């Protein structure tokens, strides 16, 4: 969803709603696909569980992140717009 150009709503940057990447720890069982598909934002700890970078996802990574989330075998990787 696009923001109003003149009066950006809170949570909007660069004309887009900011998106956060999140892992549902109850569903994640450390397949590690996310780190493979999105190494710019996700790395794995010693046990193979993902560690995410801080802050909102850069706009340039949103599409890759979406594909990584779709590829997660347990659907534990989630894209969340701010304020949701």
């Amino acid at each position, binding site marked *: 969803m696009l923001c109003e150009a003149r009066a950006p709503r809170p949570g909007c940057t660069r004309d887009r709603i900011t998106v956060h990447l999140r*892992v549902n*720890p*109850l569903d994640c069982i450390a397949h590690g696909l996310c780190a493979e598909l999105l190494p710019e934002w996700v790395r794995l*700890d*010693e*046990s193979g*569980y993902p560690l995410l970078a801080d802050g909102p996802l850069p706009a340039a990574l949103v599409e890759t992140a979406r594909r990584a989330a779709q590829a997660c075998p347990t659907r534990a990787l989630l894209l969340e717009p701010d304020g949701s």
Partner: protein
Amino acid sequence: MGQMAFVNTTGVTAVALLPRLLAGMGDQPVTALASHLGLYGPLPDLRGWAPEQLVEVVEQAGLRGRGGASFPVATKMRAVVARRRPRIVVANGAEGEPASKKDRALLRELPHLVLDGAAIAARAIGAREAIIALSENDDRGARRPLARRAAIRAVRRSRVLHLRPIERTGQRGVRGTGETDVRLAAIRARRQAPPDARAERRDARAPGLIARHGASWFRQLGTAHDPGSALVTLSGAVARPGVYEIEHGVPLTDLLETAGASDDLTAVLLGGYFGSWLPATQVPGLRLAPQALADYGASLGCGVIIALGGDTCPVAETARIADYFAAQTAGQCGPCVSGLAAIADTIRTLATGTAPGTAWRDLERWTTEIPRRGACQYPDGASRFIASALNVFADEFHRHARHGRCERCSARPVLPAPGARVTA
């Protein structure tokens, strides 16, 4: 029975003001409603109070949650009301902290205080139901559910509100708190509406007294930011361990003196296993109020205070509690399960002088990486405790890493760790 006493900030005049909550403490539990009303005075007829009036008096009293976050209770009540979902009050007496006894002691000895508070909270937020969560074990560790029996008896005799005791639902007592947190988090993660808006009341004691005596009476004790008194459970190197009612803002040294603390204290744990250690050098000048403690990065948390004496090895104690943390995880989230196990194993190698060169760096990394990656805050609290121990007892840890176990390592354990793995 555990020792119950009181400590105050201002000496003689304040003595008359404390005890408040524990005013009814005697030889016998006060389960009869008439005895309770005789000791604390009649509860005002709640039907005469509009819910918002109750919230207002709680706000004027400045009551803050006693569960650790120290959040204003009135704000929380309004937030629950604003959510327009079925409301329920949970008075959580099923304390999960091994060293905490205050909730069970209160439910065993003065259950009507908790029921009063639950009834007022229910009236204030428009809840039709209040759950009193009770522990299976009593506060002396015996599997004699005296608190449970006393509370249920008190519920039956209560004319204030019809409270429905819930029989035990799982292995770990009545709706164990940790389990509830995980369950709610699980629901939220799947984006379904939680079944009800819960206002958990660990502070379900003071409202009964505030409704009786008013906001300004409540503010006669404590600090401007943290009015009133609080219950704490003190143990460790003290002659008189037990549950104490303290005025917020009292110097920690006064409490330790009252309890007969040993004069060779090395450190004090504040806030239990989700809290932090303070070296004995920082104890003078420390005042027991949430805001005052925040300056030291500490918190009263669940009210557990443990004094560590010179004859106890802090490294052996930390290793045992690290094992306990690893053993007690609910096992739901990978970073918690694998992370706490790795921490426990590595602490053990430090304690026995067999640590790899990477041990310190690993521990530092794990204690910062594990928090916020579970569905509940259990791994966060455990990591904070370990990081705090590594920091405060750094010299001792280095000594053990070089020379292995010390002569105090096999001393009698001080920090309780029920059900922890047995290690060599």
